[in-house]
């Protein structure tokens, strides 16, 4: 299977078609807007956190399929997790997406590992990581996030 098909087929297109936890929820406790202005990606993350647990994770926005699918995957993966656990997972995720290594998967990231193919497309990595940075910002009470620098 070509890298391209690996990237798009299966999971990404499926989540793009059937996004989980998409849309602005009725209520939330934490929110952040992730914006990569240069490429135009925009994603909002809405969290309901109680007793240090991610009770609900929603997202909204308009971006490319990779960005949308990554957000959809992330919400599914994160819901029900403790904040502490999530932050460990976020560290692992950053390693998975670091283009300076060629890790294809990291234990404990489950389906998220399908995103590692994005490293073959350096200009698209930021699409896949934006929602994670937005979620980390939301947890920290920061209203805006970006992966540009």
């Amino acid at each position, binding site marked *: 299977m*070509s890298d*391209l098909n690996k990237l798009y087929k299966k999971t990404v*297109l499926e989540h*793009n078609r059937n996004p989980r936890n998409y849309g602005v929820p009725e209520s939330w406790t934490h929110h952040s807007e992730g914006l990569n202005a*240069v*490429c135009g990606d925009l994603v909002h993350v809405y969290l309901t956190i109680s007793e240090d647990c991610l009770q609900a994770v929603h997202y909204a926005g*308009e*971006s490319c*399929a990779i960005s949308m699918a990554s957000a959809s995957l992330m919400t599914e993966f994160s819901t029900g997790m403790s904040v502490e656990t999530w932050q460990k997972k976020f560290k692992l995720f950053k390693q998975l997406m670091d283009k300076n290594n060629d890790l294809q998967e990291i234990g404990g990231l489950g389906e998220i590992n399908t995103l590692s193919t994005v490293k073959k497309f350096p200009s698209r990595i930021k699409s896949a990581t934006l929602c994670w940075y937005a979620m980390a910002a939301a947890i920290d009470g920061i209203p805006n996030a970006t992966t540009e620098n």
Partner: protein
Amino acid sequence: MLREQFPGLQQTVHGKPLVYLDNAATAQRPQRVLDAIMDYYLHHNANIHRGVHSLSESATALYEQARQSLARLLNAPSDKNLIFVRGCTEGVNLVAQTFVRSRIQAGDEILISHLEHHSNIVPWQILCEQTGAVLKVIPMNDQGELQLDQLDQLLTEKTRFMSVVHVSNALGTINPVKKMIAMAHDKGVPVLVDGAQAMPHLPVDVQDLDCDFYTVSGHKMYGPTGSGVLFGKAEHLEAMPPYHGGGEMISKVTFESTVYNAVPAKFEAGTPHIAGGIGLGAAAEFMMETGMSQIADRDQQLRIYAEQALSEVPGLKMVGTAVEKSPVFSFNIDGIHAHDIGTIIDHCGVAIRTGHHCTMPIFQYFGLAGSCRASLAFYNTEQEVDVLVESLLKAKAMFE
């Protein structure tokens, strides 16, 4: 065949023949431009203008011949009207910070258009911040054409300068700059034309346009990266303060005072991009030999063919449908984000650009985040347009 003179086109991407449709971002260069660069580094590698040794003399001669070639290409009255710059961006910034800054005050107005590239917006925003001047914008319509019926009233007695794009890099719109310049001059307003996307496609005659300044990017007109030219009318160049300080631009320096060199040296401080200037001269010669009207005709053939072919892709929405257009196509396809299209068709060998193309205000107007942009040059072919269309259909299929 002209196309064969461009070695960058003879390659494969992901195993497919390259279909290079990102010419508005940067062009491919003919072999003779690469040869001119290498000839300098191999046989005339020296600094210019002040050496008495042979290499320096021949390097200087090549550099100044290049300036003459560019003067002929632009039909400038003299090669002394031309300043070598890094590209259009530097050209606009130079004019903003010298000519315009020295004659503007708080409350004065600078007029640009809604079709500008960021390089012809931000330098004026910076100048306005520095001086308290006000930026005004000629509006556009849904076709991506400027609303010129409003120009006369936008040119007020406060307008000190107008800077407009000749051809839009995002939509391909060709603006009637000659008419616009005449209208500005009627009100005594000098005009800079951003020719980044015009020079690669159209005959440009700065005397016929009667523009005060005209600037081009070498890398978009089949020349080297880091090269470009700013044309200015002689009386302006004489009157303007210098830009960078440094070597070459002075004739006498003491710690107390400095006498500037004559134009154009006054604006060319420091060692220039010598190989770039020489390579750009070769590009100008190539364009003149090929013939700018031949290039323009071929562009229009391709534009008509591609317009038709793209209109047959279901769900494709063209952004920018001006009557006068360069072969630049901005479009979106229902249900697929531009970045995904770009990535997918790259795997068919097709190189296009996606995003806002450094023209965010244009896409704000259309309520879009960006577009796919296929931009053609005379060396592209109808078959390549067909490959583009096929690859778009494949992308659609993938998302269905």
